[in-house]
């Protein structure tokens, strides 16, 4: 892992992931559960919870890096476009900076939909556990 390293993953926001998120966190706001309501607000159908993407980020940090000795110290995310159920998302994260003083890496990341539009982007700072 060094400054400039790029990591890529694909995530499937399947109906199972959506259902499990709903069951776990109970956010049944109609924007997320009612197609008609979502359409009345200008969306194609019910919009997936943005925080499902944070679950994918958690998986990326916890499972996809060359080391398991990691902890998330800080995270920022901006949502740009709605994501719908059964979307396939491309995730890319690049190491923007390494802070040797505190053994922390800063990543910039984004999620892209099938139409290659960025649906979310942000930054993650992780620490390397000793």
């Amino acid at each position, binding site marked *: 892992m060094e400054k400039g390293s790029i990591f890529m993953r694909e995530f499937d926001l399947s109906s199972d992931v959506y259902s499990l998120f709903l069951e776990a966190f109970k956010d049944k706001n109609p924007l997320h559960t009612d197609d008609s309501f979502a359409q009345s607000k200008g969306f194609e159908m019910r919009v997936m919870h943005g925080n499902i993407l944070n679950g994918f980020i958690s998986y990326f940090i916890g499972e996809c890096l060359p080391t398991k000795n990691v902890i998330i*110290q800080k995270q920022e995310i901006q949502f740009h476009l709605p994501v719908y159920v059964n979307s396939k998302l491309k995730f890319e994260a690049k190491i923007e900076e390494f*802070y*040797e*003083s*505190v053994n*922390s890496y800063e990543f910039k990341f984004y999620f892209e939909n099938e139409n290659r539009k960025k649906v979310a982007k942000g930054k993650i700072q992780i*620490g390397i556990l000793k």
Partner: protein
Amino acid sequence: MEKTQILSEINEIFKDVLDNDEILINEATKASDIDEWDSLSHIQLVVAIEKYFKIKFSSSEIREWKDVGEMIKSIQSK
């Protein structure tokens, strides 16, 4: 850069990172003097200071810091 100027600038960083507008640091201020200054916020302070001044500290360098005055000396040495 003068000590007083650095102190004033890092005071703003402390306020922002520790999310406390009441913070007023001086050279003798230690982590134990500020409730919000714990080990995790210390990491964010170091990162914010490195970004702001566009400098890099080493891990051994920051281990030597006992108070804000030593932090300022490190910044001045860059």
